[in-house]
């Protein structure tokens, strides 16, 4: 190899952005096309520095917009190589047209999405509005709760996305600032071990094979469009989850770090449970532990995989629970939150009639405190005791002014 390997300590102090950049370096991306946006920018800056220092060989194109970033990534991926980029919020919104095109063309691109609120009002801080906005775009979506997971899930994402049975792009989410800019100890893999896990890129239908020219991105209309989208949807629903579990298992064998599409905490005998994403998961786990000392059998579910949605795993994890809170960090303008809806959908055809309530929290970087979660768990217990949801179905946590709730 014509570039230098990087000596890493077993544990490095990295923030989520740098952890993602390191995973991209170790995966030896061929092409990155990117545009800067807070809070994801340090990922591509890190990658550019690795290139400048000779720690990776590849091409970095600093394009003129996020839409062009993903357009370039699509062209590069279709040409036949490993491709990744990063974005957030408004950048993702501008890029969103091309997300559907990448997944429709079955191109295994990895996108680091550092979650941030969508304007207006303009806000650079973290929430999940951007993640939810593209939830139906045909991308696999992982969620990292901390920098360690941002590192690990990047390596895992390439393996899953590039599998020739899967061939779908993947997003690795992490919370803006709370994960992306917070440094923690990260257990590392050596360059050789990490690349050995991700593996060499194996092109499929690549445009640079001049003996076998290919056509990408055709027109279909009503006579074929349905079949293409149905096949893509079916593959996402049936092929991806088994592949993810297989790659998680391989990763555990390699590192001892165990991942699951649905991360359960104290769920074996839980009466009440919170389902959430991102950094809130760790806070909720902390509070659940405390609630146990107060006689409330509390558990937490953190969603590791958002797309494909783990319906069966969720239903299984919740089968003995009496009251559930779905925590959505986005404003589902005009509807119930995504998690509320998906969990309701997962349980509907089961015997489980647990009481389900939805909470909107943390918009625009607002903290979710332990005190919030204490009262939330108590509310769930009150629901269990009363045998019904005692408050309104959708409530806001920690918003100033008159109490907001509906349904």
């Amino acid at each position, binding site marked *: 190899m014509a570039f230098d390997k990087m000596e890493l300590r077993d544990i490095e102090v990295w923030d989520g952005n740098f952890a993602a950049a390191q995973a991209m370096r170790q995966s030896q991306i061929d092409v990155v096309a990117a545009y800067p946006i807070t809070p994801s920018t340090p990922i591509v800056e890190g990658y550019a520095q690795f290139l400048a220092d000779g720690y990776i060989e590849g091409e970095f194109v600093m394009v003129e917009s996020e839409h062009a970033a993903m357009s370039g990534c*699509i*062209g590069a991926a279709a*040409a*036949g190589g490993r491709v990744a980029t990063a974005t957030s919020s408004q950048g993702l919104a501008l890029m969103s047209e091309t997300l559907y095109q990448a997944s429709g063309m079955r191109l295994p691109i990895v996108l680091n999405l550092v979650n941030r609120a969508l304007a207006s009002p303009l806000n650079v801080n973290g929430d999940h509005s951007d993640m939810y906005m593209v939830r139906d775009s045909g991308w696999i979506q992982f969620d990292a709760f901390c920098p360690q997971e941002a590192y690990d899930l990047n390596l895992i994402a390439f393996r899953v996305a590039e599998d020739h049975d899967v061939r779908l792009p993947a997003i690795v989410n992490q919370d803006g600032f709370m994960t992306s800019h917070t440094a923690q100890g990260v257990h590392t893999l050596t360059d050789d071990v990490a690349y050995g896990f991700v593996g060499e890129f194996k092109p499929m239908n690549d*445009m*640079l094979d001049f003996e076998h020219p290919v056509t990408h991105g*055709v*027109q279909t209309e009503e006579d*074929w469009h349905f079949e293409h989208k149905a096949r893509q949807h079916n593959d996402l629903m049936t092929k991806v989850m088994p592949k993810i579990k297989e790659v998680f298992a391989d990763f555990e064998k390699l590192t001892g770090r165990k991942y699951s599409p649905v991360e359960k905490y104290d769920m074996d005998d839980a009466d009440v449970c919170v389902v959430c994403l991102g950094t809130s998961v760790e806070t909720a786990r902390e509070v659940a532990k405390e609630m146990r000392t107060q006689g409330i059998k509390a558990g937490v579910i953190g969603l590791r995989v958002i797309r494909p949605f783990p319906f069966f795993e969720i239903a299984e994890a919740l089968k003995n629970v009496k009251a559930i809170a779905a925590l959505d960090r986005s404003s589902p303008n005009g509807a119930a939150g995504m998690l509320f809806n998906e969990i309701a959908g997962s349980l509907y055809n089961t015997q489980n009639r647990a009481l389900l309530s939805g909470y909107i929290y943390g918009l625009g970087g607002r903290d979710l405190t332990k005190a919030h979660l204490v009262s939330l768990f108590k509310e769930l217990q009150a629901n269990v005791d009363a045998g019904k949801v005692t408050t309104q179905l959708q409530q806001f946590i920690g918003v100033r002014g008159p109490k907001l709730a509906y349904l």
Partner: protein
Amino acid sequence: MSEMKNIKNLKEFSTSADRFEGANLLCPGCAHSIIVREVLNATNDDLVLSASTGCLEVCTAVYPYTSWDASWIHIGFENSSTAVAGAETMYKALKKKGRLKQPERNPKFVSFAGDGASYDIGFQWISGCMERGHNMMHVVLDNEVYANTGGQRSSSTPIGSSATTSPAGRVSYGEKRNKKDMMSIMAAHGIPYAAQVAPNKWKDMVKKIQHGLSVEGPVFINAVSPCTTEWKFDPKDTMHITDLATDSLVFPLYEIIDGTELNITYRPKNVVPVEEYLAAQGRFKHLFKDEYKYLIKEWQERVDAKWAYLQRREESRV
């Protein structure tokens, strides 16, 4: 260096198409297919192609068929240039890493887009590609209108033309603005080569395409593409209309090297009055009413002034 075809005459040229099939859904008389064929016929190089959403795309790659016998990609309306730039970047990356399947090949990267997809919605993407210096060629199929969506004005639509969103009517003569000068804008990026071409002057076009493919860096080609449905002329007259466009100097053929050196590549022996060009097309029919005759005069003055300007630029070598 690129591998050029040595073509002796039009008959040989017209039968040497091997990468763009005559089997496509473009309208009879559409200049798009002629231009694409002329571009592809100019070279024997391996090609990686893209097309923006538009007539060319929807008529040549309708699943499960394709008219293209070369790698081809379509993403969206605005980003055919960036799609090819991405592929070119991957080629560079894999070459550097020694991972090309056929390392001896020297492919060329070409994007096609209409004027809507180039002058308007795709403008930023093309500008980005030109500024970053990708080794690629962007070809505009300039029919001066959004033809694929039914004839709306673009910023390439010339003044006085009746388009569906700037129609001529009882109190309007149609489009009110002058056509955007894309050649100057693109040349201002300092790119190694920009040229205007026309399908009737096929030798001139082949020469320019071959030159464009042989230079390192981004190349911009603006090709006039008469549209039978939106310019409203008989399909058999495509080449006649193109002749009028080049011979009236409404669409002058020239090139700009390194953003500065301008060469006029075609000087009509007998310059045709602009009026003849306008009269041959239904989109300008209303200009021949008495109250709009002044616009035809203005047209002629504008074309004359532009021609004088191009000649001054050519002479002064600036």
